């Protein structure tokens, strides 16, 4: 492949490639993101390939492994183009039927279609599936169409057109102005206005400037960035190239966590392909821009998602943050002006250039523009990745897109923003998703993690979980965070074990306040959020744990007992078989009993008991 030496050459190549397969002929797109791979997508791919060959259709029908489509609950997921038919829970055994349906007249395989639980009807196309219908997929638009390892696919959907436009017709200042006008805010969590950051970097009078993509994604349960990197890595590269042009940088870094091997691999391939085509390196598209990107892998520290710790890590130092000011925009990597942005922020740039800042600003609320990607997980029917316009309400997210809570249970809270965010109670369901609204309610937008909790979640236990995580991940440099989080965790743990004292609640509040006010970096400053927000909205649960030594949600192991109802128990012995602590005794056909001293409250007996005789009290 020869380098593209000019914008004209790029456009000529794009024209020669023609319209993407999905629009022209038939194409089977199998989701090959990490989630669907784990469910067997590779087997589906293999089976489909074999089925196509057997029917002699290998040349006529395309087979692609694409990135994450988002409806992870229903994986492995497949799309059939050009109709956009959506198949879910596809297995290797279905391949023959799928290929047959295409060859013999395009009648879809009904059993693989999504069934809407509300109507009981099967839905044909992806865009009609309620999960997708209410979304506004901008960043993830191409994930179901392109093979992430093929730059040709990316060209076919208009890839790198934004770079061409910017290099040929826009000045760096105009690019920055565009980003400002779009209202784009950093998608890593803090929500700083991206245009403003770019402007600061652009204005620095320095020979050397750096661009960094923060792909460390450490929040437990978050996988938006991962799926974007796995599914459309070129979109991130394109954003960075535009940023380099606008701000005057010649070197860029993508800091990706090592725990994302597929994302690392896809990025390596994408960078190599971009270099091959002259889209990275010297004289990009012959327009005078020199910019190259290096991949740096993380080493397993959540704190390295914090920008100054990340920079320290790239520099080869210990991943410990430093106080800001000064901000990286003025003095960052190796002391030079550095623009560090999140994966989703970079991927938004080509969209803004191609579709216009005003178009972008027309989506969202007054101060929170554009779309936001959430990883909707937890006690929700439709688990997966969701891209929605800012301003959508939590109610719409959970019931409209998420399909509500499984087993008809009651929603209790939504945890937004990962370990830095807080819990929003069900009473605030009509809250719009907006940076300011969420912060006011005691949470924060964060990077996009959204964990749904129901009546069976104990909010004190949730706080304990996050304090444990944060204590472990604290870098340990500053006293407030290191010792403060240790104590907060200790106290909350004691409360979950039935040893809470009345004074503990005020102590948690005050200590939490101190950690937030005096910590050196964002990790410590936001760490008390899960605790303080649950104290604010669920104080009654804390009081029950402290005053009555009772866990209302029946989660905290030291405060619950498992008991078998002697009336309901039929003596089948199923529980005895699964009990790993040999805590259940009983004769066949006679009521069984649980020895509380040996019981570890693992819940296995509860799961297998048919007459529902196991009670948790």
């Amino acid at each position, binding site marked *: 492949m020869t380098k593209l030496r000019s914008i004209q050459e790029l456009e000529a190549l794009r024209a020669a490639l023609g319209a993407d397969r999905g629009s022209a002929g038939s194409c089977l797109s199998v989701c090959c993101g990490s989630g669907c791979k784990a469910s067997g997508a590779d087997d589906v791919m293999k089976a489909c390939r074999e089925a196509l060959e057997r029917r002699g259709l290998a040349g006529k029908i395309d087979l692609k492994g694409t990135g994450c489509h988002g409806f992870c609950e229903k994986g492995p997921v497949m799309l059939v183009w050009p109709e956009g038919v959506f198949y879910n829970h596809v297995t290797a055994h279905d391949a023959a039927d799928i290929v047959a349906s295409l060859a013999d007249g395009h009648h879809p395989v009904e059993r693989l279609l999504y069934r809407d639980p509300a109507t009981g009807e099967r839905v044909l196309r992806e865009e009609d599936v309620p999960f997708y219908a209410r979304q506004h997929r901008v960043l993830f638009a191409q994930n179901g169409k392109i093979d992430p390892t093929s730059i040709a696919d990316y060209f076919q959907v208009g890839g790198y057109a934004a770079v061409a436009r910017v290099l040929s017709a826009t000045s760096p200042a105009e690019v920055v102005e565009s980003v400002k006008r779009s209202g784009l805010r950093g998608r890593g969590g803090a929500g700083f206005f991206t245009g403003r950051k770019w402007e600061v970097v652009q204005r620095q009078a320095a020979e050397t400037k750096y661009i960094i993509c923060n792909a460390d994604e450490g929040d437990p349960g978050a996988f938006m960035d991962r799926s974007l990197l796995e599914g459309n890595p070129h979109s991130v590269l394109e954003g960075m190239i535009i940023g380099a042009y606008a701000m005057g940088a010649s070197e860029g870094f993508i800091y990706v966590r090592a725990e994302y091997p597929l994302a690392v691999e896809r990025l390596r391939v994408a960078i190599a392909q971009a270099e091959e085509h002259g889209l990275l390196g010297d004289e990009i598209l012959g327009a005078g821009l020199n910019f190259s990107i290096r991949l740096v892998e993380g080493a397993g520290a959540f704190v390295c998602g914090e920008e100054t710790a990340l920079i320290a890590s790239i520099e080869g130092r210990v991943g410990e943050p430093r106080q800001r*000011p*000064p901000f990286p925009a003025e003095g960052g990597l190796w002391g030079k002006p550095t623009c560090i942005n999140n994966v989703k922020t970079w991927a938004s740039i080509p969209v803004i250039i191609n579709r216009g800042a005003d178009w972008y600003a027309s989506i969202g609320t007054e101060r929170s523009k554009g779309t936001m990607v959430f990883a909707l997980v937890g006690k929700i029917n439709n688990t997966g990745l969701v891209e929605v316009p800012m301003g959508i309400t939590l109610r719409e997210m959970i019931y409209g897109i998420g399909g509500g809570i499984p087993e008809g249970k009651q929603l209790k809270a939504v945890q937004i923003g990962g370990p830095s965010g807080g819990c929003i109670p069900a009473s605030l369901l009509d809250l719009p998703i907006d940076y300011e609204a969420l912060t006011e309610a005691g949470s924060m937008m964060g990077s996009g993690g959204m964990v749904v909790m129901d009546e069976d979640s104990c909010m004190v236990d949730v706080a304990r979980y996050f304090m444990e995580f944060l204590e472990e991940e604290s870098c*340990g440099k*500053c006293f407030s965070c290191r010792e403060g989080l240790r*104590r907060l965790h200790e106290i909350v743990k004691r409360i979950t074990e039935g040893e809470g004292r009345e004074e503990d609640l005020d102590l948690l509040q005050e200590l939490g306040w101190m950690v937030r006010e*005096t910590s*050196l970096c964002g990790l410590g400053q936001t760490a008390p959020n899960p605790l303080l927000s649950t104290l604010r909205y669920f104080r009654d649960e804390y009081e029950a744990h402290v005053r009555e030594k009772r866990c209302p949600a029946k989660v905290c192991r030291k405060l619950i007992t498992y008991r078998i109802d002697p009336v309901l128990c039929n003596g089948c012995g199923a529980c005895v078989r699964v009990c790993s602590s040999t805590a259940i005794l009983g004769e066949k056909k006679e009521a069984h009993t649980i020895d509380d001293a040996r019981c570890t409250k693992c819940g296995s007996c509860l799961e297998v008991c048919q007459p529902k005789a196991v009670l948790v009290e």
Partner: protein
Amino acid sequence: MPKLTINGIRTDVERGTTVLEAAKFLGIPIPTLCHDDGLKPYGACRLCVVEVGTPPKSKLLSACTLLAEEGMVVQTHSKRVERARQLLLELYVATCPQSKTIQDLASSHGLRRVRLEPKNEDCIQCGKCVRMCAEQMMAGAIGFAYRGANREVIFPFHRRSDVCRQCGACMYVCPVCELRCQGAQAETTLCSGCINFSPACLNYHDHAMCFLDPCVACELAGPLHPAPVKRTEKPKPPDLSAARLDAGPHVGK
């Protein structure tokens, strides 16, 4: 020459001056634990936090690492700062109740109770020993290892380093173990052991041994107390036989 305002006082400082230095020049005392004029600022103890900016858009930042900038508005002793310092000190006393430096800092900030369980640790990870060894003694024999609660000061890989000349500078500069309180009663965090000692100042001895102001002993039982305890005999010097004279970074672990 950035012009900034500290506690309402406008002052001009040279570029590169920290807020801590500027405040000191104005005679405003800001408590510190990890700071030393001879060492690079570290910003780990968080005691020197000051309120920067105008509320509600103000935040607490450590003065020792904060470079003075044009137009900066700083309050060193606002209610928010003082409350933060008090809570920090409560946590410090609970972590190292045996440190006289911390006990004195606590009492001078009006701390009268500690609601957290005492841990009796030897190190607050202020980093003075590490910086002293690297910057002043030009050895760099000790350093921080691990992360979070496991972070500690060690020789590299827990092996006595051959660049360590046993100069003792690390022990000298340590604010926690050097001035170890000799009368500690571990069950109570604010031990008031000082009450049982005579104050170490000129009122009682030929040579002043106290450079702190005020010493808890003076406050609770000495000349500053409204009803000082009458002593009938000269107190015995403390028994140091049980004290750990090799206290400091955990060498040879």
